[in-house]
């Protein structure tokens, strides 16, 4: 008996006997067997052993199948029900998640203006939406430095791409000046030349000597003088 030089080929003999090799591999193994006495003998032995091993025992598959069906009746339905239940719950969870995300998105949009005002205040940007009158009595919000600036809320992409300082806004317009009233005197440095001339002219018209009988309601010296006079009599 010649010694087999190809263990790999010899290892495939059971697959050859059972017809589990591809055509190409089968041809290679068969060629090896024709040249290898040891493998040829083993192949004969395997082909002799296979029917012996296959022969026993014989079982009644029909009886086994009937018994198995009897014992597993309803098992297939239960598996099917479990599978269907799993699918239903997955769909329910997905729908709930979708609704929750939608609700959060809606709430986010509903509160967006407040967030924009906060952003504008943080960057010192004019924001006059709903406050175009310049009323500074709105609590902690700073008085708008400009009047009637357009309600510019740059879109998100613009905010991202453009620094806040470079956002184009309407050039500031001066508050209409007034020569009378305390408000006009609070910001003299803001007055234009025309305003100053108008104010000066108005002052020139005033008498440098206080009126002996001031008009009612006008008390240039305040209540302290009246208290003195009243107190003296």
């Amino acid at each position, binding site marked *: 008996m010649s010694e087999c030089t190809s263990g790999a080929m010899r290892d*495939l003999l*059971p*697959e050859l*006997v*059972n*017809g*589990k*090799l*591809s055509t190409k*591999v089968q041809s290679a193994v068969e060629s090896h067997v024709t040249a290898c006495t040891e493998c040829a003998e*083993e192949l*004969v*032995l*395997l*082909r*002799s*052993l*296979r*029917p*012996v*091993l*296959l*022969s*026993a*025992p*014989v*079982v*009644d*598959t*029909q*009886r*086994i*199948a009937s*018994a*198995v*069906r009897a*014992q*597993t*009746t309803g*098992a*297939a*339905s239960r*598996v*099917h029900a*479990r*599978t269907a239940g799993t699918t239903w719950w997955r769909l329910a969870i997905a729908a709930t998640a979708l609704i929750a995300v939608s609700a959060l998105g809606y709430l986010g949009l509903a509160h967006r203006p407040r967030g924009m005002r906060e952003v504008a205040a943080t960057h010192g940007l004019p924001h006059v939406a709903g406050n175009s009158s310049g009323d500074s009595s709105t609590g902690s919000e700073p008085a708008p430095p400009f009047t009637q600036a357009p309600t510019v809320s740059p879109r998100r992409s613009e905010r991202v791409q453009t620094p806040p300082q470079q956002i184009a806004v309407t050039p500031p317009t001066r508050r209409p000046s007034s020569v009378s009233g305390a408000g006009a005197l609070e910001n003299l440095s803001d007055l234009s030349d025309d305003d100053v001339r108008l104010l000066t002219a108005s002052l020139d018209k005033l008498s440098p000597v206080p009126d002996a009988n001031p008009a009612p309601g006008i008390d240039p010296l305040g209540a302290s003088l009246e208290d003195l006079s009243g107190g003296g009599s």
Partner: protein
Amino acid sequence: MTDHSQSELPPDDAALIARWRSGDERAATTLVGQHAQGIARFVASLGEREEVEELVQDTFVRAFGSLDSFRGESTFRTWLLTIARNLVRDRQRGRKRSRSHVEIKDEDIVSTSDALEGTVAAETEQRLREAVETLSPMQRAIFTLRVTEGMSYKEIAMAVGSTEGAARVHYHNAMRVIREKIDE
């Protein structure tokens, strides 16, 4: 190199399992018909002779009862063999050492004279049976799966709960023992 796939179900088995899962209990009958005989041979090779049919039946009952846990990581046949092996082991443990020794009885054997005629003499056939009898249960189980099913060592290792290398060693040792027996 070989044609069998390690991780894919044969199309027939996969389709039948899907049908059974969808509620078609007739698919179970077909699956039993395809695999019962192979499971019976395996059970017998492990040393069980008296209750082979009952063990095969229990194997299928357990398999269909836990088909949810079958992920297709092995073939359905290998999975069934694994269940059968566990059942045999449990039964053998329960019986301790009171089980009957494995014998291949003449009445269990289908006449194979036609298949052997012209290739192996009847005397040789008897010697082959006797040679197989001398194998240990593990050797016999592995040798039977390899010769009758053409299963790979990896599949065999999964079925018998061993390693691929150990399965290869058992197979070659079995072949050596059988050769020695028929050469005596």
